[in-house]
């Protein structure tokens, strides 16, 4: 860092200021020119929360429309735009960048590195997301409105979309490039910049899960880019990859999309597993049970994720052998996932547990995510999937694993590390309120959707038969309660901490938390581990 010449260095001339103060830009320049992993982490987290709110507003518009049968608020065209954009924004704008934010903040701290390996690329990969997000969200105001082909962008429906489809494709290209750069950064940082003594098998689970996730991202983002580029050339340059009118194959699009899409699902859950694997031991006052098997389980999930994609396509009419293969492979994923759940419970077993908010969210995660896991197993059974494919049961399933899974894990991590990030303890009472409020309203929203799906209500429907009215009404009420809980979280938990209001946090606010992030003061200084720390034998403490 010291080699960088900043404009204000020259203005002040070189004096004997310590490196810590030597010209980190201030004001807006601090953020726009940010190269510090902590600043960029903060930017990622704030950006993803903003996108969570935008995606949330779209979700609530959907829920208002579905509160009663009949069209009240939006027309079916706009409804399809809402569901499509809700999905795209939540996946590419909220969940994925949020985990990158966690990675930026925590990985250098956890492995004893001074910063991310490529600081300027880090800046670039964040700021690329802004034009992409503006283009994506702004597509509502383009002629014909936003893309309305579903977040999966199935051909040939995409060929009928207006110009906003091209904007959406371009935005996804940029977001993909950003993800790939972020992943390269994370891999290089983890493989090259660990402090001496921090061997791979001593690394914190969060760093491990992100290492695996980053490889998944590099493997599959180009596949998505390929699929949407072919869509683009089909739309404008007369190719017929997916257009049956020219001899193309719409099902081929689905194969390519889901070859990206299924690993993508694990990209959104593996870092969550990492967070949970750190929070549970800290509040059980006991080491993580089966660390090695956790690493192997995570790796097997990642590898298996490449051979299960067509379970999203059981109703396309695959040959029976294809269906059997994808059914068996998918069910196999239940094994490493079960191992993880068992390991967490064994970590709690005979521990000495306390239930601060991070632990509550972690337990909530394990409990509710497992329900999503079981519905996943049921959906994996091809004969049952024939009934459930494209119904609300699927909607319920993936919200159980993405909201109660990924999002709850991120809340757990946010509460766990907020004291380190801001130097202020969040308000415990408010945190607990946020947890119970979220847990209950989440289930009120999404549990009834299982029934709707079993009864055959198709997803992406602007209007539905009247027999489905009551459960939809309940889900809508729950949706609003859940949405308000997240606004409360930001305004009454996060914001006070960021403003420095509240009790000052200790260097290690959690009695039994382990890891190098607790070896630096709270809030974490702008620069940490500038010289490689000397670690103890467990690589969890700095000894000089």
């Amino acid at each position, binding site marked *: 860092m010291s080699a960088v010449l900043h404009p204000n260095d020259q203005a002040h001339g070189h004096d004997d200021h310590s490196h810590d103060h030597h010209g980190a830009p201030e004001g807006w320049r601090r953020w726009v020119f940010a190269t510090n992993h902590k600043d960029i982490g903060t930017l990622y987290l704030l950006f993803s929360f903003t996108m969570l709110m935008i995606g949330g507003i779209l979700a609530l518009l959907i829920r208002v429309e579905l509160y009663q049968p009949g069209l009240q608020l939006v027309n079916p065209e706009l409804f399809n735009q809402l569901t499509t954009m809700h999905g795209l924004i939540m996946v590419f704008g909220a969940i994925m960048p949020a985990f990158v934010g966690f990675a930026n903040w925590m990985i250098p701290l956890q492995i004893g590195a001074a910063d991310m390996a490529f600081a300027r690329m880090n800046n670039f990969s964040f700021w690329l997301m802004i034009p992409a997000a503006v283009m994506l969200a702004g597509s509502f105001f383009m002629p014909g409105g936003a893309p309305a082909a579903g977040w999966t962008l199935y051909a040939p429906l995409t060929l009928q979309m207006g110009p906003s489809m091209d904007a959406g494709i371009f935005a996804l290209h940029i977001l993909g490039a950003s993800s790939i750069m972020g992943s390269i950064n994370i891999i290089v940082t983890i493989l090259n910049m660990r402090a001496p003594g921090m061997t791979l098998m001593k690394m914190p689970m969060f760093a491990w899960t992100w290492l695996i996730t980053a490889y998944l991202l590099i493997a599959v983002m180009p596949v998505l880019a390929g699929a949407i580029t072919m869509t683009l050339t089909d739309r404008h340059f007369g190719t017929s990859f997916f257009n049956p009118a020219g001899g193309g194959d719409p099902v081929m699009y689905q194969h390519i999309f889901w070859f990206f899409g299924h690993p993508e699902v694990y990209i959104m859950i593996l870092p969550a597993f990492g967070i949970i694997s750190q929070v549970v031991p800290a509040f059980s006052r006991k080491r993580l049970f*089966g660390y090695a098997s956790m690493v192997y389980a995570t790796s097997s999930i990642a590898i298996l994720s490449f051979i299960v994609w067509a379970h999203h396509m059981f109703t396309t009419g695959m040959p029976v052998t294809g269906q059997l293969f994808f059914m068996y492979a998918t069910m196999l994923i239940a094994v490493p996932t079960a191992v993880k759940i068992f390991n967490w419970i064994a970590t709690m077993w005979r521990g000495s547990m306390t239930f601060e908010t991070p632990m509550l969210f972690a337990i909530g995660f394990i409990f509710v995510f497992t329900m999503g896991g079981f519905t996943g197993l049921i959906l994996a059974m091809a004969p049952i999937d024939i009934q459930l494919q494209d119904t609300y049961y699927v909607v319920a399933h993936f919200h159980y694993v993405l909201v109660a899974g990924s999002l709850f894990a991120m809340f757990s991590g946010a509460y766990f590390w907020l004291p380190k990030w801001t130097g202020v303890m969040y308000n415990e009472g408010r945190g607990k309120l946020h947890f119970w409020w979220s847990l209950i309203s989440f289930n009120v929203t999404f549990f009834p959707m299982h029934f709707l799906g079993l009864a055959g209500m198709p997803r992406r429907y602007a209007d539905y038969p009247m027999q489905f009215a009551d459960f939809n009404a309940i889900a809508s009420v729950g949706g609003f309660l859940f949405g308000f809980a997240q606004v409360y979280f930001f305004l009454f938990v996060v914001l006070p901490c960021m403003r420095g209001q509240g009790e000052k946090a200790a260097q290690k606010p959690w009695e039994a938390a382990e890891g190098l992030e607790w070896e630096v003061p709270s809030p974490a200084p702008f620069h940490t581990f500038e010289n490689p720390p000397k670690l103890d034998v467990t690589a969890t403490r700095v000894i000089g």
Partner: protein
Amino acid sequence: MKLRVLLFITVVVSFETWKFVKTMKSISKTLSSLLIKAGIWAGAWAATAAYAVNDLPGGPAVNQLDFHPAASKIAEEQHSLHVFMMILCTVIFVAVFAVMFYSIWKHRKSVGHKPATFHESMTVEIIWTIVPFIIVILMALPATKVLVASKDTTNADLTVKATGYQWKWGYDYIKGEGEGIGFISTLDNAHREMSNAGKPAGDDYLLKVDNALVVPVGKKVRVITTANDVIHAFAVPSLGIKQDAIPGFVRDTWFRADRVGDFHGQCQELCGKEHAYMPIHVKVVSAEDYTKWVDAEKKKMAAKADDPGKVWALEDSLKRGEKVYAANCVACHQAAGKAVGAIKALDGATVVLDADKTKQIMVLLNGQNNQAMPAWKQLSDTEIAAVITFTKNNWSNKTGQVVQPAEVLAARK
């Protein structure tokens, strides 16, 4: 030793469960009715308007909690499989979380529990990797059986082709009794209007069609699916079928209805703005009734067949065109023919008013604007001619032009 005991227990429990699935079903029904009551209470609590709606036999029931009652062997087996999975998953879920909550209850700091120090055990870890693996295999066995049966579309008594259009279904009887019959099945437009007005009513809301797909009971019916524009999905829950209808490709599925009745489904793959408005109605009738229906349908077709060489007068063409418009065009273009969102106006449109009739004929035959206006070449020459005549002489359009079927036929070449 412990491992073998555990394995044995798992195997026994799974097989017993599978055997008693059918008895358990009555229990799940009792449970269902209890849950329904709770659901109704919650629904009322959520302050929804109390809708006057009843169960629709063969379609959804009010606050239904489970699959539709099965009307075919495959659907029946899908249900049994689901019940089996539910029982197994519930047992595992309860067992696993009983352990977790016991631990949460007993091993907390506030009751003075001191943390143990163990953090691995090879034996335990191997057991809890192998046991889920075995459970998964036990789940896969019955699933494989049902799947293989559901994919066997050979030796069908009747073959029907279902073609997905934006946004309606076309049915063609390809092989078997009734061969040659073909018609289009559309949502009752009154329902579409109720939806727009936000005033839904009726037990069959959004499920009522003009022409149901009629099939005989107890006969193996093979359904071939394809589509004209984008992907649709042909699904009837009670019959246990769901098959994507893919443009340019042909896929198939089958069912054998075990009782007469009306069975309802809806399109299950996002296909554009009217996705929610292309229901499926399968009417299962007795063999005699089916023969009667086939005869009647054949007679109707013979009577309806238009002479493509006929020269139409303006008045007749207008009347015919109005009907065609109501069945095919009104969903997008509305009764008033004005522009709505991306939908172009017909009233006062240059292409409609143009003296060169071929321009509008080409739009109907080939579609326009990236198929936002789909191609209508599946309609007969007479129908296309009539509906163009209608648009050219309705609303403020007063061209006096009459389009003849021969002109459409010529444009097709």
